[in-house]
């Protein structure tokens, strides 16, 4: 599961991160709460201070108003004013001086006017300036005979105007009044406070009602105030302190959280370290530490149990592995032995064939004109040849599967390969009356390959076509250059291949459906060999068929080579047969093979010395002159290679022709035999005609 690496990989770091995140959140919350609390307390304190200031000033103003009211009541009740009502003639002498003496109440300038019952001025103090509205107000309210106050607008802003009626105990009507006023701006308040009155507006901040005397009570004077920002300014340093404390707390909690996380996950870390060690190294013998916590102990216990099981299974696996190893080794050995056995078997089967074939040939030469004997000899010869072919294939397969085949690569013309194969199979094709059609271009088809092996491939395919096509069928062989590749095709109209069998057609030991009579015969080696050999040439082979009875087509594709300029080196020009009588020594420990070959050579007119032991042969070679030495390679005591080298080392034997005989022709054998001084190499059973042809080209010494 891949996940973006937002989180640290270590559990302890995650715990630390989580604890620091929690700490951060907690610190943030606590800071915010503190912040809010302080702000709240600050607001409350400000409100309380404001309220206290409001109360203080309200009391002050109230006291001033009381003083004003009391003083004005006193004035209104004074006998001087009462006298003025009945004796305004005296106003210049005592009334005005009396009123003029009233200038201030508690330091607040006051204007006083003494009016008659109609509100007309009788006398006033020097500062009295009542505007018409105020006088009108006086006249409107005077008849009620009650002390009254109202805030009216004046020249200097709002003014508190009040009237104090003059009552005469002997009349029922107010006989005059003292009207007085103060300018509200003269009432000193803190700058942040202000005076309000009347019915408060809904949004008015908290105000303190001024404890006013009855006359002013209806005015509802209040001291209002706004909490100014200056009040809360003092809180900022505290916020800084909170921030610092919060940061310090955060650091402390973070460090503690990290430390705690490591402490808490220590046993887990140990377990983790152990488990990584266990997986990295084969330390299943060890056991996980118990751990400090229940969970870790449980996990450790589980791990230990698993380790134990792992250990047990590991032990069992080791045992099984040892068993398997020895089994594989045994199988390999068995396989190798099988291969060796097959090779040996082929070799050993082949050896008797040589004298049989040679014997048959001998019989043909010596038996005269007896027709029956001649047919029998043909049968023997043909069957020996067939068997040789079977054994050769078997040997080839054995060598190919063991990787023992080495190609002798040369620049070839594929047309020659096809021609050689056709020539090889021609008798067989003719025997079954097949119609052979060969289609080849005029130009060469250059390939790099082992001619013998490629001929073997094509002849195998032709052999198959011939074999699986009823007599009188048609076989088409073509070779052409297609897009840088040389395509060789063998096509027949024979029994075809069942579709289900097609994929396995190139398998070893696979054969098409067998006829009850095994008329086709064979071991199922041919196509497997074809496939292996073509692949050794970096080519490929394929088979197609339209089904059973509808023929089959096999196609071999090889990489085309650069065309060779000039004539390819042809086969060495054989010297014309001399027909000379040659001195020949045949050395072979297979007495039958040696004697039949010697007999055959003697029939050809040569002088033959036959020996079965290499030591004796060497000794003999030293004393006789032989033109040709035919040596079996697989000799007891001293092999043919060694024998050839020694013979070549003998005086006068440098020009002798040395011919090697081996059980089966191999490039290695050929190289070894060439290096040992052999001039020619023949594979058993010796092709009598080929040998005769060779000997004919040898000139006697």
């Amino acid at each position, binding site marked *: 599961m891949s996940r973006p690496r937002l989180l640290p990989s270590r559990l302890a770091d995650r715990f630390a991160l989580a604890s620091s995140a929690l700490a951060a959140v907690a610190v943030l919350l606590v800071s915010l709460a503190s912040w809010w609390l302080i702000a709240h307390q600050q607001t409350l304190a400000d409100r309380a201070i404001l309220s206290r200031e409001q109360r203080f000033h309200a009391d002050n103003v109230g006291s001033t108003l009381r003083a004003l009211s009391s003083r004005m009541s006193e004035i209104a009740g004074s006998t001087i004013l009462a006298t003025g009502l009945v*004796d305004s003639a005296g106003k210049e002498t005592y009334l005005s001086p009396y009123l003029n003496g009233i200038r201030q109440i508690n330091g607040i300038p006051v204007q006083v006017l003494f009016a008659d019952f109609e509100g007309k001025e009788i006398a006033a103090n020097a500062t009295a300036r009542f505007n018409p509205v105020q006088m009108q107000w006086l006249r409107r309210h005077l008849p009620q005979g009650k002390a009254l106050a109202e805030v009216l607008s004046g020249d200097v802003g709002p003014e508190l105007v009040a009237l104090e009626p003059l009552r005469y105990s*002997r*009349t029922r009507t107010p006989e005059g009044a003292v009207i007085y006023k103060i300018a509200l701006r003269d009432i000193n308040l803190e700058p942040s406070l202000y005076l309000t009155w009347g019915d408060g507006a809904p949004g008015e901040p908290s105000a303190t009602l001024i404890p006013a005397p009855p006359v002013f009570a209806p005015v509802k004077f209040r001291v209002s105030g706004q909490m100014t920002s200056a009040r809360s300014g003092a809180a900022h340093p505290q916020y800084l302190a909170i921030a610092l404390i919060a940061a310090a707390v955060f650091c402390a909690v973070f460090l503690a959280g990290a430390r705690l996380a490591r402490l808490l996950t220590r046993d887990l870390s140990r377990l983790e370290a152990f488990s990584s060690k266990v997986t990295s190294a084969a330390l299943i013998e060890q056991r996980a530490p118990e751990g400090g916590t229940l969970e870790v102990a449980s996990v450790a216990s589980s791990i230990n149990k698993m380790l134990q099981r792992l250990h047990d299974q590991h032990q069992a696996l080791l045992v099984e592995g040892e068993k398997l190893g020895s089994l594989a080794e045994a199988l390999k050995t068995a396989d190798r032995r099988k291969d060796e056995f097959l090779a040996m078997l082929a070799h050993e089967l082949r050896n008797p064939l040589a004298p049989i074939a040679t014997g048959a040939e001998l019989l043909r030469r010596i038996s005269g004109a007896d027709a029956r004997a001649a047919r029998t000899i043909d049968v023997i010869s043909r069957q020996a040849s067939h068997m040789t072919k079977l054994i050769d294939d078997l040997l080839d397969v054995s060598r190919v599967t063991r990787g023992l085949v080495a190609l002798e690569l040369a620049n070839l013309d594929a047309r020659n390969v096809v021609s050689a194969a056709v020539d090889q199979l021609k008798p067989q094709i003719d025997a079954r009356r097949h119609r052979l059609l060969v289609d080849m271009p005029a130009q060469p088809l250059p390939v790099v390959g082992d001619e013998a092996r490629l001929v073997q491939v094509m002849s195998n395919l032709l052999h198959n076509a011939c074999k699986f096509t009823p007599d009188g069928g048609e076989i088409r062989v073509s070779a052409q250059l297609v897009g840088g590749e040389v395509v060789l095709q063998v096509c027949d109209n024979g029994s075809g291949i069942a579709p289900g069998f097609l994929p396995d057609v190139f398998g070893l030991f696979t054969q098409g459906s067998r006829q009850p009579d095994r008329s086709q015969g064979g071991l199922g080696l041919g196509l497997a060999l074809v496939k292996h050999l073509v692949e050794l040439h970096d080519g490929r082979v394929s088979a197609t068929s339209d089904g059973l009875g509808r023929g089959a087509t096999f196609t071999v594709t090889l990489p085309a080579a650069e065309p060779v300029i000039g004539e390819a080196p042809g086969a060495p020009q054989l010297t014309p047969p001399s027909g000379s009588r040659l001195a020949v020594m045949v050395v072979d420990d297979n007495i039958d093979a040696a004697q039949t070959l010697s007999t055959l050579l003697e029939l050809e007119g040569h002088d033959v010395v036959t020996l079965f032991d290499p030591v004796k042969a060497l000794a003999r070679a030293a004393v006789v002159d032989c033109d040709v030495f035919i040596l079996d390679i697989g000799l007891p005591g001293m092999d043919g290679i060694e024998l050839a080298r020694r013979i070549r080392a003998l005086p006068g034997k440098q020009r002798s022709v040395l011919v090697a005989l081996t059980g089966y022709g191999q490039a290695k054998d050929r190289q070894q035999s060439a290096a040992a001084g052999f001039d020619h190499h023949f594979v058993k059973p010796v092709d009598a005609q080929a040998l005769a042809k060779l000997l004919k080209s040898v000139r006697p010494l």
Partner: protein
Amino acid sequence: MLLGIDGEFGLTNSTSAQAIEQGVRIATGEINKVGGVLGGRKLEIVTKDHRSIAARGIRNMQEFAAAPDVVAVFGGRFSPVIIEQLPVLREAKLPFLAVWSAADAIVDNGSQPNYVFRLSLRDSLAMPFMLKSAGDRGFARVGLLLTNTAWGRSNLAAADRFAAANKQPSIVGTAWYNWQEPSLVDRYRKLVAAGAQAIVLVANDDEAALLVREVAQLAVADRVPVISHWGITGGRFFQEAGPALKAVDISVIQTFSFFQAKPPALQRFMAAARMYAGIERIEDIQSPVGVAHAYDMTHILAKAIDLAGSTDREAVRNALERVTRHDGLLQRYAPPFTRERHEALGTQNLLMARYRDDGVLMPSGK
């Protein structure tokens, strides 16, 4: 034809305005009964109340002046109110008849022609008379306790003139009081402490009643007689002073006493009084001087109107100076007024009186 009365009708405990109205009503009753004036025109009375407040008096007077049917206006007890009214009177050329108020300045108002006529006491007569009364009673030293009004100042001026001319009694001090004073006794005692053997009081009924009640509280030795101007008789002084009156020696100056009236005039008056005011006995007459003065003055006015032959105010004013003779309740006025003299009464009319136990004011001789 209207006769105005501008008086202190609404003043609690005051009886002076009502007394004046009684006098005018009784007289007009008589006059109207015999055909009125100017050959049959009835006299009617219009009253206005100033409650002793000058401003109200001024307004009243303006209203009277503006009413064409008002021939003349009778004034009330309070000199300060009338003094305040003088400019209006001068302006309106409305004959004004002072039948109680005593301040000199009311008549001596400096206007010519003078529309003010007085049939009443005059301070410059009353003060010397009271001082002389004190002296006669053997009080060598008196103190003046005065109301702080034009009336009080009028009396002080009269006292000063007396003192300048007479050695006995000497004035040891003057104390002023204002209206609505809650207490007067301190001033009284101060004057006594200054050596006053008697106190000459210029006051109205309420202040006098207050003083009497306060003085009655003093030790007998601390009490000195009070010789009072007649303002105290304009209201329910006797009732307000109550039992304290027995503890205080208080005599009051008067111009007239029904008990000393000449029988024919008294009989005629009482007949009319019975008819028009429901008064059966002279003891029932409260504020007797007011009733008597107004009664006589109304008759004199009626004669003047007839003499003038119209209700024209100036003509009436002039006629008032030309009424040659009237036999009134107080005396024979022959003539009541002259061009130079707008005072109908003189020193010969003065007397001192005391309250009888039943509240009836009786002449006391001294």
